[in-house]
């Protein structure tokens, strides 16, 4: 397996969102999120697909996750017909707290198929507890997707590195 970097963005001062594009083949793509820190404590990040240069905010996102926690019973989180994917859970923004994860993206370039995601995310919450966020999602519109937009549940992304790779 090899990785070919398609797009990357390192946030060092607050921005509302990050957009990564460059999906232009039927290969599987991998999105890495490293050190996502929200400007407001206890925020998650969300993901939308990007088509023809614009994020798609229609109610076509379904997902199912297992939220694993180091302190108590795990939770199941699922939803249909949402306007974005949930990428992580309540991430802290104190020293050391952040979210990190890997997303694999399938069928994005294929205009006759839905776009699928798998995700495995680890984070330190706003209470500095460990949590994991594992599962998958689908964008239920058969369309050609060229990238993703990452944005926080509210306010801004304080910092983080976001990279899109093609798997070769």
């Amino acid at each position, binding site marked *: *397996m*090899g*990785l*070919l*970097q*398609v797009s*990357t963005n390192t946030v060092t001062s607050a921005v509302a969102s990050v957009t990564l594009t460059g999906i232009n083949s039927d290969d599987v793509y991998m999105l*890495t999120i*490293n*050190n996502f820190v929200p400007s407001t404590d206890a925020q998650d990040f969300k993901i939308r697909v990007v088509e023809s240069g614009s994020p798609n905010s229609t109610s076509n996102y379904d997902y199912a996750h*297992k939220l*694993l*926690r*180091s*302190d*108590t*019973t*795990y939770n199941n989180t699922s939803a249909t017909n949402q306007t974005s994917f949930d990428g992580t859970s309540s991430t802290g923004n104190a*020293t*050391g*707290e*952040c979210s*990190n*994860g*890997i997303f694999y993206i399938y069928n994005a370039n294929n205009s006759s198929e839905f776009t699928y995601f798998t995700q*495995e*995310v*680890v*984070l*330190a919450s706003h209470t*500095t*507890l*460990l*949590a*994991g966020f*594992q599962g998958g999602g689908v964008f239920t519109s058969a369309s050609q997707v060229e990238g993703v937009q990452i944005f926080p549940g509210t306010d801004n992304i304080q910092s983080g*590195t976001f*990279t899109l*790779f*093609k798997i070769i």
Partner: protein
Amino acid sequence: MSKEYGYIGKEVTQAFRSNKGIFTPQDIIELDQENKWTNFGQLELIQTQNADDSSSTLDFTSIKENIYNVHFLTVNNMSITSAGTNSRSILVRLSNNGGTSFISSSTYQRAHQQCFSNGSFSEVKSTGISYLNLTGAATNSTATLSSNCYIYFYNLGDSTKYSFSTVHSSGQQKGNYLKSHFGSAVYPVAETHNAIRLVSSTSSENIEIGSASLYGIRSF
């Protein structure tokens, strides 16, 4: 290697994002090895270690944490000497002093989901354990059973961030049934970690067989 890269009588300085000249395949190989060849996005093998039943540990002490924010570890066909009759695991610990010692205090946190082929599922969680992760079940080679997994590590080289990991494993448990687990872990101390140890859960028992490969995922 010629330093002229097609230019006559003039040595050309090469750097990532700044390659000039005409290159032979050998030039490209050598510049790539020196990280001077522009090649966006790389999954780079740092080191492979093979177990030979001589030690209970496998250490990675040159993990290039100053280069990579994300590391990827694969563990293949790994077994512990006596685990065919006893439940054993392979643990993962970090070092902050280049491998002189490895952190074994009950400071790590984890949250894993275990899945067994006998129909059992369980949550495994802790806010104070002595290792970052484990590779799942491990049994001895005579039973042709083994443990396999991949682990992503985040921020090992960032002194301002905690070190995180995710894992997904599949192996054979004592009793010849599958044990799979996935989940997350963290060492919640903001410091640099510069070595990784795989260690048998029972120090008197060696890692009998198996290999582990550590990669760096680079972005530019």
